[in-house]
């Protein structure tokens, strides 16, 4: 199963690498969000520093929606999904592979976003380990939920408008927890970041499990 998952992940990342959509379009959009937050909050560094954890994760959510939509568009084109079914791969492995591909893409964007937030919002990272750990765990949760909802929207004419309203409410608990861990890592709030990390881990496990169980049902007839 792991080998199948790696195959699917490698395929998705290869498509991404050859098209360069992530680097040429999504990455600049990520930077643009950070700059817009700066304008919206009146370029007040103190406010930006305080709200940086929340802004960071809101930016990640928005970018995740874009990445999921892009993945769904690739799936819809050339009947990729039917071919995947014909390939006789285990649906759970396909899910894991697609989620892993999305995870890598989002993580690359988060690294860039972190640099932007640290430089532009003048944030100092008090606990780098907590920050890295919570990024990884939260991104697993986002990538799993995103992959699952991506396949729900494949083949629908209204995918672009539908996906955000389906996906974002489901990601709200991740947003809440990740904002807390980052708040602690940036020394902005008096919260126990490691306890919140445990909660994030629970969400990640739940979404991965649901995805592995439900993906086959959705893949079958879509």
């Amino acid at each position, binding site marked *: 199963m792991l080998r199948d998952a790696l195959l699917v992940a490698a395929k998705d990342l290869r498509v991404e690498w050859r098209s360069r959509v992530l680097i040429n379009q999504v990455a600049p959009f990520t930077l643009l969000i950070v700059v817009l937050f700066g304008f919206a909050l009146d370029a007040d560094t103190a406010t930006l520093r305080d709200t940086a954890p929340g802004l960071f994760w809101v930016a990640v959510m928005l970018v995740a929606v874009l990445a999921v939509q892009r993945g769904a568009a690739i799936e819809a084109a050339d009947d990729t999904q039917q071919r995947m079914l014909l390939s006789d791969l285990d649906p759970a492995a396909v899910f894991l592979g697609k989620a892993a591909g999305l995870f890598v893409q989002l993580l690359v964007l988060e690294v860039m976003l972190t640099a932007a937030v640290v430089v532009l919002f003048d944030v100092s990272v008090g606990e780098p380990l907590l920050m890295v750990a919570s990024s990884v765990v939260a991104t697993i949760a986002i990538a799993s939920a995103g992959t699952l909802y991506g396949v*729900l929207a494949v083949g629908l004419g209204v995918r672009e408008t*539908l996906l955000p309203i389906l996906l974002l409410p489901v990601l*709200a608990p991740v947003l809440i927890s990740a904002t*807390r861990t980052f708040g602690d890592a940036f020394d902005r709030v008096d919260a126990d970041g490691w306890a919140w990390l445990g909660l994030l881990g629970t969400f990640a496990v*739940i979404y991965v499990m*649901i995805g592995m169980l439900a993906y086959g049902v959705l893949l079958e007839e879509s």
Partner: protein
Amino acid sequence: MSATAAPAPETDSPTIVTGTSSRGTRALAFIIAVGVPTLLAFAFFISPEDDVQRDAVRLLYIHVPIAIMTYVAFSLTAFGGIMFLYKGSRWWDTTAYAAGEIGVVLCGLTLITGSIWGRPTWGTWWEWSDVRLVTSLMLFLVFVGYLAFRRIPGDPTVRARRAAVLGLIGAMQIPIVRFSVEWWENNTLHQSSSVLYGKLENMTLFTWFLGQIVVGAIFLYLLIHRFRVAWMEEEIETHGLVGALEERRAEALVGVEQAVGGTVEGRISAVKDV
């Protein structure tokens, strides 16, 4: 929803449905027609005002039953989805859809009545730190998405399968969101369950109980009607397509006949003779 609805257009459907009401729903309607004025009389005049909340407590006789029925409705959506995946029956899928739609309406009413009640009691329309408010809003948004998904035209079976997964994840959000939000601020303005802790006096308890029955009856009434409407909608969707296809085929046949002269059957037999 009238008892004597117009006859359904002729289709190939074996069952011709002429309306969404039945003896059962008319009985329910009667209970509601008597129950609502009685509930209002008890809530506004007969039950005593609260020592702390004063008259604002009267809104709770509606707010609490509606909130409870919201949970019932969304649970039914999730359950219907599971049953559809398990049995593949359209009946369960339609039940899930009907319950989801009424659930969204009830959830919206819960938010509105809660907000109106919160203004005099807490002094604010909205309180971010309150767990139940935030949870209810998230629930509302999740199921608004569910309904948006259900309205997309397409293959009914594929849609039902996807909707079943969506409804299930949506209902699972209740404990998940609640859990996270509870930790988030670790406080709530909501009182703990008054009913369970036996804090209510006789008259208050009775009024609440009456409210629960009336709102439950309204829910059931709407559910049955919505189910029947959804069922008929899908009949039209399926049979409408079949009918349209047959019409197009007939048109095409006439077109061919005009082009070649004479009937198609005649031409075929002529070719056979040759």
